[in-house]
């Protein structure tokens, strides 16, 4: 196992406690909602990046996200009040859908896999419009947490999202994460090591699906209303944009990208049809201006001012068994 960096743990505990404290006392519903939406988008983006680690673009995440949101809506509207149980079941439901989809489709690669995922997201979205039980085109309403939890829901949602991103980080740094990088590099060689590349891809995909499923469940709780139009191909497209604009080098990149673009989308929202042009323009400028993503600005600042001894290093300490 990799060693745990105490500064890293301390920083994350401070950030998590700070976010929970702020959300618990904040009187601004708009700011609170913005933080929750950013957190949900951060999980979507981190999930997208996680699958990018095996060299694939997961356009099926829209279907998984929506499926978990609908599971949550069905649960809540049928009287299930236990939020942790509902979120867990929705996340596992997303994982099962991811497992079934991945088992069939991860045998193909690159653009083929991406296009199948895209089609899957759209087919599942269209299926909701044909099923009366889930409200057809109108969707489902009344997805509320119990009143006793109402004040704490934003904090709970953000805490869950935070822990999911930390989970992605831990999985990436594990020996399984090394295998994922290896699969992206050369899956044929991974097979010669006695490891099934398909299984590595599948486990990676299911991990991402469980997290995206949990995010979908939180989406349902935070919006209270869902409809098929919420889960179109734009979900994975935005998730990819968050990951690319924020930077793929580190799991923090997609989080930064999600927060940045979520805030930008709110700022341009009052511009009518022009909002899509402005939003797209920001993405283009970001991609051209900082090719490694916004996270590279932080790296540049750290290297420029030598903060934390930041330097490019390939190997931290061979004797300690820790790869940098």
């Amino acid at each position, binding site marked *: *196992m*990799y060693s745990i960096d105490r500064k890293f743990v301390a920083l994350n505990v401070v950030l998590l406690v700070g976010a929970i404290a702020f959300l618990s006392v904040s009187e601004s519903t708009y700011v609170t909602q913005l933080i929750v939406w950013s957190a949900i988008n951060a999980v979507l983006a981190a999930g997208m990046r996680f699958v990018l680690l095996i060299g694939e673009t997961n356009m099926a995440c829209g279907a998984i996200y929506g499926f978990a949101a609908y599971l949550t809506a069905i649960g809540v509207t049928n009287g299930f009040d236990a939020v942790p149980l509902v979120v867990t079941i929705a996340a596992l439901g997303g994982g099962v859908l991811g497992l079934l989809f991945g088992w069939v489709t991860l045998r193909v690669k690159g653009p083929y896999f991406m296009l199948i995922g895209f089609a899957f997201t759209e087919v599942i979205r269209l299926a909701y419009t044909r099923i009366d039980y889930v409200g057809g085109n109108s969707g489902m309403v009344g997805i509320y947490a119990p009143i006793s939890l109402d004040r704490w829901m934003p904090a709970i949602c953000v805490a869950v999202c935070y822990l999911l991103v930390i989970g992605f980080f831990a999985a990436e740094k594990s020996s399984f994460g090394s295998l994922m990088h290896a699969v992206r590099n050369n899956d*044929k060689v991974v*097979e010669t*090591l*006695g490891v099934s590349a398909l299984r590595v891809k599948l486990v990676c995909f299911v991990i991402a699906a469980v997290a995206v499923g949990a995010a979908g469940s939180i989406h349902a709780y935070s919006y209270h209303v869902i409809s098929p139009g919420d889960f179109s191909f734009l979900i994975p497209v935005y998730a990819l944009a968050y990951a690319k604009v924020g930077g793929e080098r580190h799991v923090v990149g997609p989080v930064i990208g999600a927060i940045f673009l979520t805030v930008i989308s709110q700022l341009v929202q009052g511009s009518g049809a022009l909002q899509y042009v402005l939003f797209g323009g920001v993405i283009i400028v970001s991609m051209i201006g900082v090719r490694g993503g916004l996270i590279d600005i932080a790296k540049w600042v750290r290297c420029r001012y030598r903060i934390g001894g930041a330097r490019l290093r390939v190997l931290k300490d061979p004797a300690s068994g820790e790869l940098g």
Partner: protein
Amino acid sequence: MNQQKLHLSRAPSTRPLLQVNGLTRRYGGLVAVSNLDFEIRSGEILGLIGPNGAGKTTTFNLLSGHVKPSGGTLMFDGANITGLAPHEVSRRGLVRTFQHDSFFRDMTVLENLVIAGHRRWRTRRARVDGAHKIAARVGLENHLEMIAGSLPHGLQRLLSVGIAISTMPKLLGLDEPLTGLHTVEVANVLDLFRTLCREDGTTILIVDHNMKAMMGVCDRFIVLQYGKLLAQGTADEVRNNPDVIGAYLGKAQ
């Protein structure tokens, strides 16, 4: 390295490690490999040779599970491995390298070897220690922090072998390991193969076009032509076989 001493260390046995019976692969109307029968004996270095298009690489892919046979059986170390997936074949001890990029290009040499030891060693520390030993074994101990894709070609070949032997194979298949190497690098790689075979007891199957080098290192040869077995035997036997001479140089009308 002292070649004479190495040859005295361990002689090839007559026990078949791999038995190939009636191996066939068809692509539509084209028969790439036709009813092939041969065996690889434990502890030997076997050369698989033949002119371009003879079916060497297809045979190699059939043995490693990368291509499913249309017919025939593969018995490896007493077990039937016909039709198994590549990773299942590798788990049984038949491990191969590829002609191109048989390593993880974007990773350091150390990271390559750490991942290669994923199934052999359970902890990360053990994998790193093992990677250092393997690196020393193949002569890469001074290049651990280099990115594999930026290594000179000869060192990339050594890394490919290092990755393969990290899995402790019973049969190591090397697909054109000498291509693009200069004379000194060829000598070093051949020394490594001899050491692996004679001292570690690893059986080796080599496919390569460098006939001079192959004649110097292989105990026995299988010669293919048009997907069929043309000849087999020692270096002298195949060198003097009129069919083999005809296959390489053409026959007088």
